[in-house]
């Protein structure tokens, strides 16, 4: 099993009621699997917040895997058994001017 640390920042953490959690995912684990696990835990609203449509992430969601920004749902989460941290932050903001 792949052990993945999840960090939920900002709105995602506030709505989930926690900033830190651990997931155990079957190997090979992909980003998609982690998001599925988060949806299973926090309900379909979680997915609705982070997905632009059923196939694509919101453009204002940032996901980092071990501090590297990723956008591909097929990103592999654990390589050579090294610990993996996935952090998610929603950046909703209006702008004008």
């Amino acid at each position, binding site marked *: 099993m792949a052990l993945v640390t999840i960090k939920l920042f900002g709105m995602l953490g506030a709505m989930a009621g926690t900033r830190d959690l651990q997931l155990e995912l079957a190997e090979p684990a992909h980003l998609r699997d982690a998001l599925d696990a988060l949806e299973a835990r926090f309900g379909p609203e979680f997915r609705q917040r982070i997905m632009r449509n059923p196939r694509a992430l919101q453009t204002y969601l940032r996901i980092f895997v071990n501090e590297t920004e990723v956008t591909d749902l097929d990103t592999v989460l654990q390589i050579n058994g090294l610990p993996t941290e996935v952090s998610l932050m929603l*950046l909703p903001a209006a702008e004008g001017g």
Partner: protein
Amino acid sequence: MVVAAQAPVAAEDVWIPSACSMCYGTCSILGHRVDGVLTKIEGNPESVLGKGRLCGKGISGIMTLYDPHRLNKPLRRTNPEKGIGVDPKWEEISWDEALDIVGEKLRHVRQDDPRKLFIQRTTTNTSSRTPWQVFGWAFGTPNSWVAGGGLHCGNGAHLISGIMHASWSVVPDFQYCNYAVYFGASKGHSAGHASCSNMGMAADARARGMHMVVVDPICNFAGAKATEWVPLRVGTDAAIALGMCHTLVHELRLWDSPYLKAKTNGPYLTGPDGRYLRDAATNKPLVWDTQTKSAKPFDAVEPEQMALEGVHTVSGLECPTAFERLKAHLKPLTPEWGESISTVPAATIRRLGQEFGREARIGSTIEVQGRTLPYRPVAAIAFRGAQGHKNSVYNFLAVDLLNELVGSADMVGGCLGFNPSCHGHPETGRPHYIPYADEDGLMITGIWMAPHLPYPMHEPRMPETMSLIDLYPMTMMSPLMASSDQEEMWQRFDLPYRPEVLLNFGCNSLLSVGNAETVAKTLKRIPFIISIDLFITEFSEFADIVLPDCSYMEAHDSRPNFPFIFNLPGGMGEWCWPVKQPVVEAAGERRESSELLVELADRIGIREDLNEGYNVSMRLAAPFRLERDKRYTYREICDMELKSNFGPEHGLEWFKQHGVIKWPKKPEEVYWRHFENVRVPIYWEFLIDTWEQANALAEPRGWHIPREYYSPLPSFLPCVSHEETSEQHDLYAFYYRDAIHTNSFTMENPWLDETAQLDPFSYTAAMHSEAGRRKGLKDGDWVWIESVKGRRIRGRVHLTEAIHPEGLGIAACAGHWTEAQPIAKGKGVFINDLLEVDMEHSSPANLNLDLCVKVGVTRCDGEWS
């Protein structure tokens, strides 16, 4: 014996490089400090931002810094009653007490539901953007807006500039452009983005002989300097632009075929339902391959082999290209049709179309720094005037179609989105951003002012935000934050919470949004309001706590003009990254708001979220990423950003000494479109799905979203004012941005006030002389201006030939009434007080609030005169 008095020798006499914030232009300045006192502000000639020049507002910043009415201590209201003109009965409190109250309120709201925090801030102070965005993300609220320039500002201009030019706005390529048409825009002639820099470049372009046509109901900042002023009926820009497109396509058969094939979705095949025809295996849009005479995915065919025109048979279906649909759409939109809507003679529209096509020199090339590039020295630009209407999206898009047809978008001499491609400083390669393509080949901007990108749009969904932006994905700013029908709309769409705390930074929404009565009602519904500002404003009358902010002369920022798509001149030249630093010590108990937000984050328990937000927002790279659990000052965060971008030797201290860092722009950056494999949509196919999805959510809730606002091709659609039939209300009042004042912020500045009083337009309502004569009015008469809805304001008329006969032009946002700003009080005409703030007066596409209103004008006759 007479002894000559000797002037005391100053112990300190220094010039400090920093950035202006009297408007959002962020020109680079030098502040002259003598013995701790600011004595003069000049432009910084070392910087590209203004190139050593300042406007009158920039020079007058000294009067705002030392204004005796500035806030110096935290205040708490003691009068629980709130309303316009109601004295809050302020009492001074300590910072400790203020922070205890504010921290507790915010902590409570975040635990309950972070969406109940509503943040609003001004755009005037550009440096506030990052700290406030990051605080909002860390807190977890999706509810924010900016209201400095009003709700009419930029909604359509930024959206469409983002989709079509990967930039916040557009300008002519002043160095090479020979023929520019301005639709309701003043770039290079008054205020706005890269204002002083653009003024110099525009002046040089005119001196070089650039022919400039200004299509605008009023002949002021741009029109007065133009080669030709074309007055139109307010809000009808699309009718003229589409008439010009008709002339190009149907009368001249003139377009840039190689450009349209390679850089737009013009060759994409469409099915009977208007959607793209897609490849069954890859889902990619199909084009017609003229060599094999078959449909293929767009990226499997060389552009020159694609069919741009025609209807092609695919699997038994008749499939026009997107360009063929555009041609058919333009067929009835003749100059004569344009005249019937805009009042501009058909012959003029036709001539402008012909001149634009001829001057584009389609097919020509030019060498720039050893690169041979397409040369298209024509630009059609638009800004707030054209897009500040119910038809915001199409008015702007129709203008941009002119650039797309002749291939001048982001080409040498053409219409530039400014600086959307940056390859970074030569030593670090940072900052780095380039537009890129999505799966359909359409362009996604490489950088944006907010993470909510203009394209790709999200699918409409049930709203989670006060703004309903979730349902209306083209929206940037929404009137629902302060509209008369917000509660009705929130109930209709089951918004599961209501705002409980409003955190305001420098925004006076009572003046800048719409009629004050409506805005005041929405503010009264919010239980707790905190305002951080330089002055007591009309908005403060509704605040519970007021906190004194530092002015730009007392504050730090590492990115006053970043991203460059907002405030750096376009065209060839240099990249330039300045900083803002205190020129003088902060007086009283003022605190920098960016430092205050760090303190509040700690009190709320969101330090980790805030630090991660800065890592994300500033794209900090190791080893300059913030550690999540460490407390940083905002100055330290600025230092990290500068080192992350420019190397460890270029931290905040280096910048404070040197002011700016510069490096040359490359043709591949400035004329990026020629080099990058991206396309833009001349046919907005994606709107078909957007409307179906949005309306499917809305209809069951008794709300209809009109389909005509979501057609893939632009049309003229009327404003509410165009459909008013009352004979007493015979003029279109509209507002424009004054060059002397920045929204409502600068009216307390005595130098600017004096200048505005000398100016015949700043504080008056401009009316055509003939209309004035018909009404028996003389220049300078006091009048009542009344809307169809019965809203009434007072002002003085200025009779002039320099306005469309149906227009009434008023500079916004004047009309202060607070005693706390004695210089501003009573000055100018409060046009926003005529504007309804509701869905009826907002665009069903991007919720842009309409800035024009049909009015009647009568003399005050002794009541006030």
